[in-house]
């Protein structure tokens, strides 16, 4: 089931980049467990306040983390929002962030279940 949400190849590449030690990958994932929700909180706040600049930067950050962990759908959703912010034309930012929130939860759950061995 996790394979649908997580691109295992991307995750393998990340592991290779950081030197192949699963403990290091575990460390990064643990950090994502904290950073993910807090970034989402920033996105929710800025979406409500219509602060597109902050929304863009936090979408960009979450996007790049999502890509590293192979959370393709989450990354794509963040990228779309980032581009929209950049263009200054965001349709219902709160709803978009809500969609990202769902993707984040799915990705976190899938990452917990994933096994590279």
């Amino acid at each position, binding site marked *: 089931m996790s394979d649908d949400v997580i691109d295992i190849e991307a995750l393998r590449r990340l592991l290779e980049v*950081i030197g192949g030690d699963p403990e290091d990958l575990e460390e990064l994932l643990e950090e994502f467990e904290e950073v993910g929700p807090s970034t989402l909180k920033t996105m929710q706040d800025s979406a409500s306040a219509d602060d597109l600049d902050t929304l863009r930067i936090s979408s*960009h950050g979450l996007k*790049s*983390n999502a890509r590293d962990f192979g959370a393709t759908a989450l990354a794509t959703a963040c990228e779309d929002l980032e581009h929209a912010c950049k263009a200054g034309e965001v349709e219902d930012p709160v709803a978009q962030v809500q969609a990202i929130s769902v993707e984040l939860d799915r990705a976190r759950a899938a990452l917990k279940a994933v096994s590279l061995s």
Partner: protein
Amino acid sequence: MNKPAALDMTGQQVTSAHILVVDDNGINRKKMRMAVENLGHTADVAKNGLEALNALKSQSFDAVLLDILMPEMDGFDVLSEMKQHERMRDVPVIVISALDDETESVVKAIELGAEDFLPKSFDPVLLRARLGASLSKKRFRDQEREYFGRIERLTEAAEVLEGGRFNPESLDLDDLANKDDPLGRLAAVFRGMAAEIYERELKLKKMILTLQGSFLVLAVGLVWGLTPALSRMASGLGSNPLGLAIWVNALAAIFCLGIAAYRRKLPRLKRSEFMFYVYWAIIAGILQRMTTFVVTEHVEAAMLSLIVTLQGFMVFAFAAVTGMERASPRRLLGLFVGLAGVSLVLFTRFDLSDGAQNAWLLFAMALPLLFAVEALVLAGKRPEHVDIFASVGLMMALSTAMLAPWAYFSGDLMTLGPSIGRLEILVLLMGIVGASSLLLAFHLIATAGAVFYSQSAYAMTIAGVVWGMLLLNEELSPLAWIAFAIIIIGMYLVEPKSSDEELVIKRNFNSES
């Protein structure tokens, strides 16, 4: 964790580099640090532009991995700031960018001086290749800069040589010459040849200095050696010591100040400088002259001249104790040899039955002591900016002014002239001798030092004996002649003081100039 050795693109081991990772995203930061460390390098992290610049200012890095999109101070700001600082300008920067949507950013970053770029989701081979390329470029640039720096220093050294300064220290090539590569060997050859030339020239200069000094020593001795003989002749013509001193000093003063005035070198003096001349006048103009004139009434001129050689030993003892001059064993030996010669002569004349004569001989020893004090005062305290003629003239004038009232009240004022008799000619001669011997002594002390100058006492002795024999028909025993030989050996052993100033050799290396 077991760190693998750093490898370059061709898989060869390279030295570990120090990398700065700049990213506002904590997970990215950690990932980059792990990736860099995985390649065998060390990494520091900065979470924004400001932190990055501070790190770059305080430490030296071999490369920077820089995120572009950061709040407040972004990657572009960091790049432009880095290019403004000499210290950071040449540290290669690899910008990290999500290439898909940031092509413009990458272009801009490269225009701002970034060395390369890396997509956010890179694989390790790519990181190794890009980082490796940047690092080898940096290493090559560093080597190049170091090499050019050394060439620049060699060129500077060549310019120093062209300026005539061969002192190896002024070339400042020591660290360059210690490098074991062609440029280092060139520097070593350069320095070696300069040192050889410098030593040769130094030896030559020392020889010339010794020759010049020896000549002056002989001249001083010859002229000053006349004084005992002349004053003994004068005392035979019915002069008195005080009256004679006034005339001789006044004539010397007029002679010297006349020349100084003609050369427009009459000085303006500060109070402390004026006091120097007062002291000098008391030592040289009054005490020395009066002692000479009084003693010559009782002691033979040749004898007095021999006693004067004690001066050399006294000056050396003072100069060595006070650290004014170098006290080498050779110089010490020379002075002892000279002293032995004098003692030998004194021994031949010391007559236990003649108490009065012995007392006068002992009193005569005050004279070399006064000469010694004068030499040291001149060497240490003389106001260097004052013209030599003005100096001697002023001293003589002051001593005349101090002696005159004394002579007036004691009734010792001598009237000379208007008809020119033997005494008048004698006094005139003594005035000129007094002035020129002081001028020569002054010059010798200034150029060769007090210890070497004091060797003039030996020449003075020889001259005094010869003048005594020529003018007064005095005779010396064979033992006294042996003593002379010993004194001359002593003089040879004491070299002039070596000069501290750097030797500059005038020579042209440019064919066109």
